[in-house]
């Protein structure tokens, strides 16, 4: 494969945390001539010399931007996970699926395009009791999807594969990220762990996997500056159990019986705390793990943070109030043992 370095990069979803960080990083790279960021609101964080285009990806203006700026690399990062900011599930689906269709239609027409990098999610594997412990990239979901982020992402991936077939000259990199976590990123799961008491589904303890925000950004950056065609799972090594994560965050779990979860979920949603869609409830029951061998060998990037380290970094970075402080507990334990030993020495 001939290396075709990216010169003009277009990033969708640039005003969101990850999009902004990637834009800033690429803008700092002297090898890249122009970085164009697209979003419906201006970015809040510093994105360096990135040129901002205020547009919806469903808008035909995108096609004009791609054509006039001779964009050779498109990074699609604006598939959204929650209907929170979008204003409802219908709008979310509209942005995710129709938006991607329009963007990819524009991409297909652009002769300058050489590379397409799409941020997808491991939610495309779903979660069910019939899942293997770790999903590899070639495995199909066992879960039934009705709606939600996972369903949207499956459709998005379908369109991306379609473009890959119709434009074989374009290198398509599909990155399936596990749940992002880290000291700064804001996701449904980080809000979930920041709740005063963390709800869990009674009788279930799912395995969860995280990818640290720094690892995620680095994988996206490499996908842009290097040539890494293909589909890759991106996650930190190892898994955490939900109960274990809650304990490591020093939080208290409140098990909610499965039939009541959707009720509690809608309560939380109305309070604007966390969104609980049916697929997230399934995730809280069965969890999910992915195999990252391909990322480490073919893509050539072993994540720096294991799942557990990424989570600990999130806990430390957010300075969550820990109801149970491990150091104090260890000191108390030592005190008890010392006391017993002193009494024995006395006797």
């Amino acid at each position, binding site marked *: 494969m001939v290396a075709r370095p990216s010169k003009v990069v277009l990033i969708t979803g640039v005003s969101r945390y990850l999009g902004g960080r990637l834009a800033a990083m690429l803008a700092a790279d002297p090898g890249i001539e122009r970085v164009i960021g697209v979003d419906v609101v201006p970015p809040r964080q510093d994105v360096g010399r990135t040129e901002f285009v205020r547009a919806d990806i469903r808008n035909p203006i995108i096609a004009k931007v791609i054509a006039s700026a001779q964009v050779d690399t498109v990074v699609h990062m604006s598939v959204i996970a929650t209907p929170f900011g979008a204003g409802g599930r219908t709008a979310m689906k509209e942005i995710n699926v129709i938006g991607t269709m329009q963007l990819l239609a524009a991409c297909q027409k652009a002769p300058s395009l050489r590379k397409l990098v799409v941020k997808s999610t491991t939610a495309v594997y779903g979660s069910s*009791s*019939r*899942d*293997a*412990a*770790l999903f*590899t990239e070639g*495995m199909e979901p066992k879960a039934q999807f009705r709606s939600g982020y996972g369903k949207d992402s499956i459709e998005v991936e379908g369109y991306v594969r379609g473009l890959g077939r119709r434009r074989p000259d374009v290198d398509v990199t599909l990155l399936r990220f596990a749940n992002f976590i880290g000291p700064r990123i804001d996701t449904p799961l980080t809000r979930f762990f920041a709740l005063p008491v963390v709800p869990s*589904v*009674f*009788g*279930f*303890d799912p*395995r969860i996997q995280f990818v640290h925000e720094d690892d995620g950004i680095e994988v996206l950056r490499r996908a842009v500056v290097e040539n890494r065609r293909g589909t890759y799972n991106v996650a930190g090594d*190892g*898994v*955490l*159990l939900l*109960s*274990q*994560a*809650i*304990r*490591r965050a*020093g939080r208290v779990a409140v098990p909610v019986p*499965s039939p009541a979860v959707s009720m509690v979920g809608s309560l939380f949603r109305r309070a604007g705390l966390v969104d609980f869609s049916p697929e997230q409830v399934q995730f809280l029951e*069965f*969890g999910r*793990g992915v195999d990252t061998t391909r990322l480490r060998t073919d893509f050539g990037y072993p994540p720096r943070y294991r799942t557990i380290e990424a989570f600990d970094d999130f806990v430390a970075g957010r300075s969550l109030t820990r109801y*149970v402080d*491990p150091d104090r*507990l*260890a000191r108390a*334990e030592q005190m*008890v*043992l010392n006391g*017993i*030993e002193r009494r*024995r020495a006395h006797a």
Partner: protein
Amino acid sequence: MPEARVIPLDGGGPVRSRRPERCSETGEDGKRCRRSVVAEGRCDTHLAQLQAEQAAATAPEWERRLAGTLAFLRRRVTGDYPIDDFGFDADLTEHVLLSALRPIYDKYFRVETRGLENIPSTGGALVVANHSGTVPIDALMTQLAIYDHHPAKRHLRMLGADLVFRTPLIAPLARKSGSTLACNEDAERLMSSGELAGVWPEGFKGIGKPFAERYKLQRFGRGGFVSAALRSGVPIIPCSIVGAEEIYPIVGNVKVLARLLGFPYVPVTPTFPWLGPLGLIPLPSKWIIEFGEPIATDEMGRAAADDPMLVFNLTDQVREVIQQTLYKLLLSRRSVFF
């Protein structure tokens, strides 16, 4: 001619005595500790370590147990324990789950194990056993038999039906105790990473069969376990369990209720549901678990897994070995309960 005088190159004794003596312990990096001795041939850190160890050794048993329990509780409360990719929690399994099973194993069913030497101490292997007893206690007893009595204290990683992973409370316990879903991907992943996997291929047909059909092996699934072993190139160890059939003798099956609840069967035993919760107490049969000679699969090669005839034959061979061992054990046992 005078004899040549030997001049020691390192300056001889006096010089060596000037160099401070090195600590005799080995450091964390596996190299000899480079720090100088304070007392008893050890540096200050290693001396303190030694003294702590001596103090611990002289401490009464209950104190050491208390220290162990406190450390365990702290680890649990703070989430400070490793979980493997399948959700196996070795800390919890070793300290709580298996300890809870031990009295049942030793005192109640008085399990006798034979042929443990057939299980390799390292590397992947697949234990294939007969399934019986209405509830899968036989699997738990096999797990404990290998952990307690095999010299390598190996954990048996059991492959379970998806019903297990769908059932509240059971699902997390199963994963934490080392089980995972019985599918080819998980079986191969376990065995190729050198784990000892356990499978009960009769499934619900075996565990839920009527008492009249006890010790008659049911169909061994589709032989998926054989192809997984072939692909991973690990030996198959047939395992025959006697005694589990008698713990809850199934005399009837409430099929309507089973269909309603989505269970494979709702058993009726001489005591259940007639005696209510008392009916849940298993009969105290005497158990024998025998591990047979391993059947090597590595020389057949990975491609053999795609040869259905070979897979069928191998499945039959394993089934036949288990069935014959069951008959042999049944003949040799004196009674069901002793």
